[in-house]
């Protein structure tokens, strides 16, 4: 029984983290277009992310039209830049809304505990 519960919690965390990372990446490129190495650096300040994790996230966001790409020359090589789209900005707004509700629930739970 413990193992099943443990796995469910782990899987939730993985899904949760994936969702969080996607939003973090969108947030980072919402201010200005960025490139792989820089995105990893900026997101890492808030949540653990690796090169191998970032690539599928960028792929998914592009497929969902949340970001667009262009290439620019840098130091004699081609660098790929990722920039946010309107759909991407919408997704960030959605996330903020969802988590406002979540925060309400959290506040409620915390309130209950302090009464015990």
């Amino acid at each position, binding site marked *: 029984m413990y193992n099943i519960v443990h796995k469910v919690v782990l899987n939730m965390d993985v899904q949760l983290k994936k969702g969080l990372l996607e939003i973090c990446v969108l947030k980072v490129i919402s201010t200005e277009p960025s490139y792989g190495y820089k995105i990893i650096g900026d997101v890492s300040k808030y949540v653990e992310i690796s090169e191998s994790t970032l690539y*599928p996230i960028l792929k998914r966001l592009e497929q969902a039209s949340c970001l667009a790409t262009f290439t620019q020359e840098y130091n004699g090589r081609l660098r790929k830049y990722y920039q946010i789209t309107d759909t991407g900005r919408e997704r960030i707004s959605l996330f903020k809304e969802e988590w406002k509700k979540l925060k309400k629930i959290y506040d409620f739970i915390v309130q209950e505990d302090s009464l015990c």
Partner: protein
Amino acid sequence: MLANEFMQELSVRLSALAPQERDKALSYYEELISDKLENGEDEEEIISGFGNLYELTKAILAENNITNISQKKSIHPAIIIGLIIGSPIIFAVIVTVASLVFALLVTGFAIAFSFLAIGLSFFIISVLTFIFSFALIINNPMIGFLQIGVSFVSLGLGILFAIAGMYIGKAVWIGVKFMTNKMKQQFAKGGNQYE
């Protein structure tokens, strides 16, 4: 692992992807490697920082809806050419070795069988000489008793040869079982390489 090795391995493992998709993934990592090197990071550390290649490529392939991956170990083209060119000789060698092994086995069993046959012969001699020695004793005690002795010697020799034959037979049999087990292992291992 060095960057070139990594990129080559990655390219091979992503061969299931459409060329465009594969190139995108490869450029992504090339770019990262260049940026990190520029930032003073160590090449080996960069590559090891990327983590397990299998997991890495599994994730990329999964994003492209490729979930059943068999990561075969790539065989160098030169080796394949060598095998094709050399196949007649290789075949001849295999046949020769197999024949030798078979001949050894047959010889081994033949020796074992011969020993058993000799042992049996001595037993028969022993029995016959024993029986007829009684008749001899009546006529010529000296030779009669000598024959009894001969019969016992034959008995002893018969037992020795029989035991020797059995041991040799057993040894050859164990040899056969050992060889077949090893061959089974080799084929099982060869199959596992492709999992």
